[in-house]
């Protein structure tokens, strides 16, 4: 990678401090950014990365500390203020107005107009260009964003950020729902921007990605800066060590498990929004991965299985019992559990407490005649908080105020707490830090060894290859092929996902 | 012109005369009596009556809409108890323009677009109440004047009649409260009176200008165990009020003659339509009912008008 240590300093943040009520999120953090560099910001879930960059973008205000941009003091009072100074950001929690169309969202806040009237034609032209720039010209301009899949929304979000000619571009986990292909495309874009002198702050939990793209890094831990430097001077292990404070032994621990009887079988299943019938059978103690590109239709399959979308054709058999109408209520009673990829829109009741969210699908252990044993539950929750390393004040904290990764952990913990036999996991590791990820992989292995069935959707091929027994590839709503994991490589998976043909 | 020609005209059109009677509201006992009177007249005269008030009680704007809608329906005549002496002028003009004559009942209307006016003298009702109050209190005391709703013309006249008489003739009677309005419902009158009695338990007399406020205040007096002790003059009647009058909880009720008002209203318009000469102004009178005279047949007929034969219930 080209690097120039003598690049001029563009931005400086000094002694930044931020409290959320009783929680200290940032404690005297220093950060600086050079012109034309890609600077990775890494750290565990809840380390304070998002908070730091939100202060930079103007979405939050620091309690204390100084910032300067191009040697002029900088303290944005609003995101608009920040953008005027050339700071633009892709937020971790997708920030789109669901009722507005793709076009409207991309242009939001920067509409071209004459005397307040929109210049429709130019706007559409620009938006089309933007979508082409991110290699997704197929996304329709007039579809309300609320109807898009999460992956597609992330693309829209990226397109929007690229629209504004910023000198500092902040990306908070931009690839968390993107496929390998789209991530690679994004990297190309980043490189191009860098050449144009744009500075980029890049937050991600995919450390290989970070190593590939970043020039320098800063590591945060518990709201403090614990290290920074040139990316080329550190190894992956050292980075992890800095982040977590300990070593992570193995990324994809394979735990021995045996494949048992047939548990879930999909027979010519087609849901309301699905485009093709799917046949699939899953056995006890089996981890099956589903791979595909954005909008490949994996989420729709899962939703149909779980009874969230109506079945038009075919059947879902659980332990060879077929039920005519599936509803989540019924599925849960059949021992199924579903983790939604849309944690903010669907996965979590944000204004409810951590404890409620975690136990919502399974109150039985704490309830007697409909009354909840709150104390008993609190104790149990504490166990989960520790096991999942959820960083939270206490079990009554609203999920809303947790960091993105910690929210994901709560959603995942709910599924584990539910003690389901069949786990439908849609992008379960989205936004989760490295150490916790490997922990989660280990659990999945353990669950399989206990005879549970896991259907694992992911856009990150290495994790599929790392933990699944079998992997199915989806292409445009169609199941292309399903094979043993050892028959797949990252290359032929990609080929199958993009072309729909297996080589 | 004679009855005969009239009959021909009706036969020609192939239907009976259709008269719209538009009260200010439909849910007070008072309007029920008017309705009964109108039905009585319609039976005697062989015409058809549509009874229809504004959908929200006492809403001027809504009453205008009702008048307009009946103009569009093409009724033959309208009997109207206008909620406002001014606001209803234009709809009445519109009716006249479309050759639909209008008779005004209960409250006045400015201008001369109507053919007859049949009403109670509300101001006189207030005067009557004031005089009775003075008599009950023996010339001095502290009283409440509890008002009905803001902007209600007929009750304001009663309140004014009461107030004017009091200030002009009875200087020894002082008003503890005189600008509190009960609002439209019984419950709001009840609460208002409860709160006022909490503040001024020393009150000697109360006057209320209509049925709903009288009943609400009565309930408050009963709850505060002041009923019968505080001299209470109300307006209009209903079974509960009559009962209270009997028990001595109410000392006097000012009464109007709504049955007659409704009857005459319809009769006037029909006579006009049939080409008779009619009087342009009829006063249906105000009366005072007390425990002593409540069994007089005349008063009894006003207190407990028997309209079971005209209305379903």
């Amino acid at each position, binding site marked *: 990678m080209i690097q120039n240590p003598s690049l001029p300093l563009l931005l400086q943040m000094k002694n930044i401090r931020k409290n959320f009520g009783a929680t200290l999120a940032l404690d005297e953090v220093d950060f600086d950014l050079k012109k034309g560099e890609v600077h990775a910001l890494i750290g565990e879930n809840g380390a304070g990365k998002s908070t730091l960059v939100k202060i930079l*973008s103007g979405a939050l205000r620091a309690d204390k500390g100084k910032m300067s941009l191009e040697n002029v003091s900088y303290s944005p009072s*609003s*995101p*608009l203020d920040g*953008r005027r100074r050339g700071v633009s*950001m892709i937020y971790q929690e997708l*920030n*789109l*107005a*669901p*009722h*507005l169309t793709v076009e*409207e969202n991309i242009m*939001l*806040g920067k*509409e071209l*107009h004459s005397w*307040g*009237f*929109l210049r*429709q034609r130019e706007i559409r032209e620009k938006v089309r260009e933007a979508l082409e720039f991110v290699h997704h*010209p*197929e*996304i*329709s301009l007039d579809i309300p964003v609320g109807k898009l899949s999460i992956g597609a929304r992330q693309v829209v979000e990226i397109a929007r950020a690229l629209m504004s000619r910023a000198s500092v571009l902040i990306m908070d986990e931009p690839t968390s729902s993107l496929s390998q292909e789209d991530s690679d495309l994004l990297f190309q874009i980043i490189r191009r921007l860098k050449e144009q002198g744009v500075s980029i702050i890049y937050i991600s939990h995919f450390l290989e990605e970070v190593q590939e793209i970043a020039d320098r890094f800063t590591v945060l831990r518990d709201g403090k800066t614990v290290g920074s430097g040139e990316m080329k001077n550190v190894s992956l292990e050292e980075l992890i060590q800095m982040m977590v404070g300990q070593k992570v032994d193995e990324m994809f621990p394979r735990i021995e498990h045996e494949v048992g009887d047939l548990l879930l079988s999909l027979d010519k299943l087609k849901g309301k*929004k699905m*485009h093709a019938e799917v046949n699939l059978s899953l056995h006890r103690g089996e981890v099956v991965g589903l791979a595909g590109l954005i*909008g490949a*239709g994996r989420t729709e399959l899962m939703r149909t299985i779980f009874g969230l979308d109506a079945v038009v054709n075919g059947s879902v058999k659980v332990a060879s019992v077929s039920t005519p109408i599936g509803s989540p209520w019924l599925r849960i009673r059949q021992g199924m559990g579903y983790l939604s990829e849309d944690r903010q829109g669907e996965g979590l009741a944000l204004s409810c407490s951590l404890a409620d969210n975690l136990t919502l699908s399974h109150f039985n252990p704490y309830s007697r005649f409909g009354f909840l044993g709150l104390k008993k539950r609190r104790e149990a929750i504490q166990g989960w908080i520790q096991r999942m390393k959820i960083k939270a004040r206490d079990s009554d904290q609203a999920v809303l105020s947790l960091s993105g990764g910690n929210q994901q952990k709560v959603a995942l913990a709910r599924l584990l707490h539910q003690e389901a036999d069949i786990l439908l996991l849609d992008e379960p590791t989205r936004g989760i830090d490295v150490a916790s990820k490997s922990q989660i992989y280990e659990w999945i292995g353990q669950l399989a060894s206990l005879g549970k069935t896991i259907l694992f959707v992911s856009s990150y091929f290495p994790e599929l290859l790392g933990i699944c027994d079998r992997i199915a590839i989806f292409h*445009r*709503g169609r199941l292309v092929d399903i094979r043993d994991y050892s028959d797949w490589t990252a290359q032929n998976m990609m080929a199958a996902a993009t072309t729909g043909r297996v080589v | 012109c004679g009855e005969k020609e009239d009959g021909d005209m009706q036969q020609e059109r192939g239907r009976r005369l259709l008269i719209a009677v538009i009260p200010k509201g*439909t849910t007070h006992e008072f309007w029920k009596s008017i309705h009964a009177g109108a039905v009585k007249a319609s039976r005697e005269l062989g015409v058809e009556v*549509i009874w*229809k*008030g504004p*959908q*929200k009680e006492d*809403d*001027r*704007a809504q009453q*205008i*809409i*009702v008048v*307009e*809608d*009946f103009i*569009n*329906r*093409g009724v033959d005549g309208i009997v109207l108890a206008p909620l*406002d002496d*001014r*606001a209803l*002028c*234009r709809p009445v003009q*519109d009716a006249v*323009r479309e050759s639909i004559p209008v008779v005004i009942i209960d409250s006045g209307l400015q201008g001369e677009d109507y053919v007859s006016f049949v009403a109670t003298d509300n101001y006189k009702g207030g005067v009557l109440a004031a005089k009775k109050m003075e008599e009950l209190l023996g010339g001095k005391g502290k009283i409440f004047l509890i008002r009905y*709703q*803001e*902007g209600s013309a007929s009750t304001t006249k009663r309140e004014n009649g009461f107030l004017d008489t009091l200030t002009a003739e009875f200087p020894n009677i002082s008003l503890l409260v005189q600008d509190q*309005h009960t609002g439209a419902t019984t419950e709001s009158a009840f609460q208002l009176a409860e709160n006022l009695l909490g503040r001024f338990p020393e009150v000697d007399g109360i006057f209320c200008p209509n049925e709903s406020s009288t009943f609400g205040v009565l309930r408050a007096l009963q709850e505060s165990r002041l009923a019968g002790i505080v001299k209470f003059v109300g307006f209009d009647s209903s079974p509960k009020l009559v009962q209270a009058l009997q028990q001595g909880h109410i000392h006097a009720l000012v009464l109007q003659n709504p049955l007659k008002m409704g009857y005459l209203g319809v009769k006037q318009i029909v006579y006009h339509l049939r080409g008779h000469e009619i009087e342009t102004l009829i006063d249906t009178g105000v009366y005072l009912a007390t425990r002593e005279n409540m069994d007089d047949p005349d008063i009894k007929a006003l207190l407990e008008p028997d309209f079971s034969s005209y209305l379903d219930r």
Partner: protein
Amino acid sequence: MIKKNIPGLQIREKTRIQHLISWLAPFLGLILVLVIFSLMPEVQDRFLRISNFKSVATQSVIVALGALGMTLIIISGGIDLSAASNIALSSVIVAFAINAGIPPVFAVLCGVLTGGFVGFVNGSLITSLRLVPFIVTLGMLGIARGIAKWTAGNQKIDAPLSWVNELMARHPSPSWLLMAPGVWLMILLAVVMAVVLRYTVFGRHVFAIGSNEATARLCGIRTNRTKIIVYSVSGLFCGLSGVMQFSRLTVGDPTVAIGLELDIIAAVVIGGGSLRGGEGSILGSMIGVFIMAFLRNGSTMMGWPNYIQEIIIGAIIIVAVGLDQLRHRRE
């Protein structure tokens, strides 16, 4: 050709009839109401007359003007319970001003600006104290109504007749106008607002704020400023509605329009507005206004007792919106 790229988005081409149906669809509820009354033998000939349509149009002006502003507010995710009080206040102010000898033009201006001012105060309180609109406008409901009664001295204000009262005359004075000037003004403003919502930056921002306020802020929209404008504009509409109310009543009545806020909100919601924000349209709201107006008109003409009318109107509101919902679900 772009569509072909997406497997999931094969959009079926509509036939011409389907086009017609989908164009008519928003009018479904209204058509239903019109058909019901046209089938009633007692009123059918009278109900479908132009003169009746004219009076329904005139009767709707007040609610319609209120609904134009309310649509804006509801799209932005807010609500305005003070609308009806604001209408009453403005109508009283106009009467007061005319009575005080101010030329009618300025009196009208006073009325409209009073409405705008009340809206502005609503908007400012909502944004500066960060209170929910429900509370602020509930408070304002009482405050505006109280001030109206105060100004009017608890009575209606009689004002001398002037051209202002011609604004809502059912028989307008230059007879080539055909309908009251107020009706034309309402139509004009509805078109203006529809254009504003669809074709201006401001309109987009209003939708964005209602859809996701946090996003709007993060995208650099000055949400507070926009919201203040929304409430002020809506206030101006209430002010104008108050002028029309005065014009119709010929008096300034502080007790007018009590409870009308529910009618106004209902019209917007019937027309597809969502109280969660981000959804709504001017056309829809206007249809909502007319559904309610024709329902009232038809039932009055039928001479149904009020309670029957209440029951039927209640039922038809549910049915009309239910039909609309069914249609949406089908799509």
